[in-house]
């Protein structure tokens, strides 16, 4: 059919688009739904369960039926409401949830099998035989269920997050919202006006009501001009406020580029976090339908939506239209359509006293009792006083009253209250703090009522925060009361749909009642009512009313449904807000990162850090070859490794020693200035927490190191102890992890190398013994700290310089140490060196182990109070016999796998006989064998024995010799020379 006259579409431009591969055209101002109707396409989708042919029901975000896959390729988006998709040139849409064509869907056999798919069918039908569930039923259901499909291609578009603050947030840009925003903005308040539509006006655009005896569009245009000149007002079109969160924070999604073919350089959508002092909820109302037999035929839609299509989009779904109504509102549709030249086949009004408002056939005291036309409505059955006849109509507008959009008013669990006068749930009194509801959302749906309640709401809301606003001169508007009867559904034997999208019928509600699923919460879950992507916006209240009727109770006795965020679906992409891929979290680079890159290093992610894993050289074909070389070079000459990532905490103050005594299990106050001590921290429950070194640079100055992984948590823990436990101590903390570049210099030639860079500082074994530390200068005046500590078991130092000199220092040491065999090594070699030496690391300090297990039970001082000391002495902790041991395969060619569990030879391998597990494993080039560290019951007494390392996941069962965890230099002579 051709377009009607008028409407808010730009006829000077044509936009072409395709639906299921067929080309059509529309105009700017159209939605996909209005453009399809203008092209005589009524069939737009298939239902979820029965695959029934479906057409568009609404003209807004409540749409249950007209869901399409929008766009193509990586931008394809399933379950997009055709009523919300703004038309653009080149738009591509495809129908979904079908096998075959939209007109002939093979899965429509489900409709014939509907007796088997009634409410709760999956709770019963698929219970037996049990074994069929995984293999047959579930895959079958998964294949048949669901709506649109995903492309599984990465989303090519950008998304963003933003923060906004305002005095007043106005949600909804209809008559009430516009009046509220105008009132508040004129008062000078900071105002945000958000509306999900691409055009302001709400239902003012859908109706023919005048304002000051002129078209409503004139008033809106003047208002928008004033809005543009008000810098304190931010108008956000295409923005859905989807949730009311704590403390006046509202979530909103702005669809920045959804109306364009591609976003270009702009983002696709923005997630806004709006902090509002006060809120006016002017979200309008959603019309409800009246279930009758086969009321889901394409062409049956909401009466108010028909008005929207006619008045705003200049389109009628058919040339000959009928209206089914329980109140005055349906008659308005008939009048509006007639004014546009559409033939009215009849208005069927459930009220016997109904009067026609114009020249159209009226069937008062009648109902629509059936509908024909599988792929598009053809005729309707009208029943009055027990007699029926059929009339022809290509579309039917159904008007069952309006449900105020109370969703956001109940996001803090506020319960809507039933109002018998307006036959609707209105917002209750337990609203989110600071919210005032206005307009149709508050049950004041006449144009005059919406305008005045909106302005009054703004005055009241601002008054509460000390801003005085004056009521503006509002335009004259209609204020006609809308009479309505409580008529909820047409009884009958055939299926009558309540929830279109999830295929819930009146029969299903009856069945739920028979199964005693009467409370609304049970009704929902048993029938899946309201659980589809539209969240039952057009269904929930009707279902509740049907259940009330069946049980002979009132609606308030039956219950109420409240709502949770989001108001409409929010894409995961916009919730991510661009924090994806490389932007998922900050990436921290070590001071020597660029230098390591220039050396061809392979990097590994360690938490947020990128660390050099190994430095392959020409000719090396496997990572193991490289790592073996780095390990042997370190033990033979000198190795260099960036260890900046280890946490560093600067501890200063007169009570620094006493503070550290309480933080560490072992004593630190007794540490001499110029010396370093290994430190073990416990959690308050007595388990090992973290370890590191503690260097005393001055009487009142320590530097503490932590593991890389725990740098953040340990610092937080130390601040907790300082501020919450012992605020009386004179101690200050600051994290200096990023301030100092720290490089490990390890191997027999380490001292010789360092002697070449220190500025006249004595680092002889006598002058600077094992565990010494000092502040000094290197390379002619560069401030540095030197620690003689060893993680590798070799003669070793760690040298720290201000971070910006880290790369230069590394380069210098490699250069001046070339003849000493100076070799950079990465985290792999670092791991091999420490496992060979038997030093505990993250694998051993995994939160489940104790000082005793680590062989450090005696370090926990009993002479002082420290965090975790008391609990570490608990009976069960003391009785623990598993201790750290070394493990070597009896046959050196056998693998050593971390995570393997240890058993006696010949013992059954089960929990009761479990002796422990392997924590760390590597290949030791030094021993030419795989080696491991692990916790073993009575480990010390088992040295020399053979146990089985079982790894059932890989079918491994390896004989292992229990040895000392110190595979290299067990006496520790090397690090002291």
């Amino acid at each position, binding site marked *: 059919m051709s377009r009607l006259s008028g409407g808010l579409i730009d006829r000077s431009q044509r936009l072409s688009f395709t639906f299921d591969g067929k080309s059509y055209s529309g105009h700017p101002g159209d939605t996909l739904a209005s453009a399809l109707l203008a092209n005589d396409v009524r069939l737009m989708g298939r239902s979820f369960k029965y695959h029934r042919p479906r057409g568009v029901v609404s003209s807004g975000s409540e749409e249950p039926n007209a869901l399409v896959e929008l766009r193509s390729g990586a931008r394809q988006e399933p379950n997009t409401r055709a009523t919300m998709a703004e038309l653009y040139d080149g738009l591509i849409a495809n129908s979904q949830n079908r096998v075959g064509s939209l007109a002939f869907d093979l899965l429509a056999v489900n409709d014939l099998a509907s007796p088997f798919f009634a409410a709760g069918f999956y709770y019963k039908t698929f219970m037996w035989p049990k074994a069929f569930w995984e293999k047959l039923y579930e895959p079958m259901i998964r294949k048949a269920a669901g709506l649109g499909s995903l492309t599984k291609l990465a989303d090519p578009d950008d998304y963003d997050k933003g923060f906004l603050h305002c005095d007043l947030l106005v949600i909804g840009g209809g008559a009430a919202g516009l009046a509220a925003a105008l009132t508040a903005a004129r008062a000078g308040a900071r105002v945000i006006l958000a509306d999900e539509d691409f055009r302001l006006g709400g239902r003012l655009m859908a109706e023919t009501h005048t304002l000051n005896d002129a078209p409503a569009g004139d008033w809106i245009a003047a208002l928008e001009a004033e809005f543009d000149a008000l810098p304190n007002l931010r108008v956000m079109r295409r923005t859905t406020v989807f949730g009311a*969160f*704590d*403390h*006046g*924070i509202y979530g909103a999604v702005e669809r920045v580029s959804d109306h364009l073919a591609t976003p270009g350089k702009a983002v696709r959508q923005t997630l806004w976090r709006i*902090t509002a002092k006060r809120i006016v909820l002017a979200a309008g109302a959603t019309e409800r339908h009246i279930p009758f037999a086969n009321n889901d035929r394409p062409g049956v839609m909401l009466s108010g939506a028909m008005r929207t299509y006619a008045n705003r989009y200049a389109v009628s779904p058919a040339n000959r239209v009928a209206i089914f109504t329980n109140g005055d509102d349906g008659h308005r549709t008939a009048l509006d359509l007639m004014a546009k030249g559409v033939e009215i086949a009849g208005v069927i009004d459930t009220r016997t006293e109904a009067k026609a408002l114009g020249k159209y056939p009226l069937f008062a005291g009648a109902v629509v009792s059936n509908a024909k036309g599988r792929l598009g409505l053809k005729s309707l059955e009208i029943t009055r006083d027990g007699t029926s006849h059929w009339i022809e109509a290509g579309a039917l507008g159904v008007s069952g009253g309006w449900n105020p959009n109370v969703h956001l008013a109940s996001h*803090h669990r506020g319960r809507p209250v039933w109002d018998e006068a307006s036959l609707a749930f209105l917002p209750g009194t337990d609203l989110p*703090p600071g919210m005032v509801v206005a307009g149709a959302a508050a049950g004041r749906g006449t144009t005059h009522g919406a305008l005045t309640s909106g302005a009054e709401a703004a005055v009241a809301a601002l008054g509460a925060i000390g801003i005085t606003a004056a009521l503006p001169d509002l335009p004259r508007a209609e204020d006609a009361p809308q009479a309505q009867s409580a008529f909820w559904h047409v009884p009958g034997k055939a299926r009558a749909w309540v929830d279109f999208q999830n295929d819930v019928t009146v029969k299903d509600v009856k069945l739920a009642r028979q199964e005693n699923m009467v409370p609304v919460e049970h009704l929902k879950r048993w029938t899946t009512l309201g659980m589809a992507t539209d969240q039952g916006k057009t269904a929930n209240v009707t279902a509740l009313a049907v259940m009330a009727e069946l049980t002979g109770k009132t609606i308030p006795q039956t219950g109420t449904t409240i709502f949770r965020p989001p108001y409409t679906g929010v894409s995961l992409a916009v919730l991510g807000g661009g924090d994806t891929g490389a932007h998922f979290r900050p990436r921290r680079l070590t001071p020597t990162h660029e230098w390591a890159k220039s050396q061809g290093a392979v990097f590994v992610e360690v938490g947020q850090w990128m660390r050099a894993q190994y430095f392959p050289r020409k000719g090396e074909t496997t990572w193991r070859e490289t790592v073996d070389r780095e390990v042997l070079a370190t033990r033979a000459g000198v190795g260099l490794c960036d260890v900046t990532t280890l946490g560093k905490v600067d501890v200063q103050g007169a009570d620094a020693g006493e503070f550290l005594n309480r933080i560490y299990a072992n004593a630190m106050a007794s540490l001499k200035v110029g010396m370093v001590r290994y430190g073990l921290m416990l959690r*308050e*429950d007595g388990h090992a927490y973290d370890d590191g070194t503690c260097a005393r640079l001055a009487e009142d100055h320590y530097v503490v190191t932590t593991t890389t992984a725990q740098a*953040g948590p340990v610092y*937080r823990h130390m*601040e*907790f102890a300082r*501020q*919450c*436990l012992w*605020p*009386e101590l004179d101690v200050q903390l600051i994290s200096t992890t990023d301030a100092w570049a720290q490089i490990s210099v390890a191997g027999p030639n380490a001292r010789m190398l360092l002697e070449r860079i220190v500025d006249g500082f004595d680092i002889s074994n006598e002058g600077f013994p094992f565990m010494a530390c000092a502040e000094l200068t290197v390379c002619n005046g560069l401030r540095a700290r030197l620690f003689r500590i060893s993680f590798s078991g070799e003669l070793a130092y760690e040298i720290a310089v201000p971070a910006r000199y880290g790369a230069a220092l590394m380069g210098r040491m490699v250069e001046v140490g070339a003849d000493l065999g100076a070799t950079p090594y990465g985290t792999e070699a670092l791991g091999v060196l420490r496992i060979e030496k038997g030093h505990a690391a993250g694998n051993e300090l995994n939160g489940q182990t104790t000082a005793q297990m680590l062989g450090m039970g005696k370090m926990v001082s009993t002479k*002082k*109070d*420290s965090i975790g*000391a*008391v*609990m570490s*002495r*608990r009976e069960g902790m003391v009785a623990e016999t598993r201790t750290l041991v070394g493990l070597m395969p009896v046959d050196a060619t056998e693998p050593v796998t971390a995570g393997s569990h240890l058993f006696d030879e010949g013992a059954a391998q089960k929990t009761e006989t479990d002796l422990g597990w392997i924590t760390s494993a590597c290949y030791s080039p030094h021993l030419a064998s795989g080696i491991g560290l692990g916790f073993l019951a009575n480990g010390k007494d088992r040295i020399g024995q053979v146990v089985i390392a079982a790894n059932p996941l890989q079918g491994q069962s390896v004989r292992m010799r229990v040895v000392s965890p110190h595979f290299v230099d067990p006496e520790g002579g090397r690090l002291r020379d």
Partner: protein
Amino acid sequence: MLIPHPLLGLRDAQEFTYLGDASLIHRPDGMAENAAETFFDYVYLRDNPAGVHRELWFHEQGDRSWLVVTRDTTTHEILGAELARDVALAAKGGAQ
């Protein structure tokens, strides 16, 4: 959620790390005779009230203050926030 930081004003809860019950401030004396019992209570036993709850938040993405925040767990209303250091000092009799 917004937390009224006593030094910095209203701050977004995302800047904070949550720890738990503010009773963690009252650490028993580890050298006392009955330390085993008092520490068991301290480490493991917590009230879980539906209503007003005093809890510890760390301004980790901020000034690194530990705060004692009083929050109604049924409404998420925040009734106040103090520096944990002040709370701890007051509990110790105002000793500095």
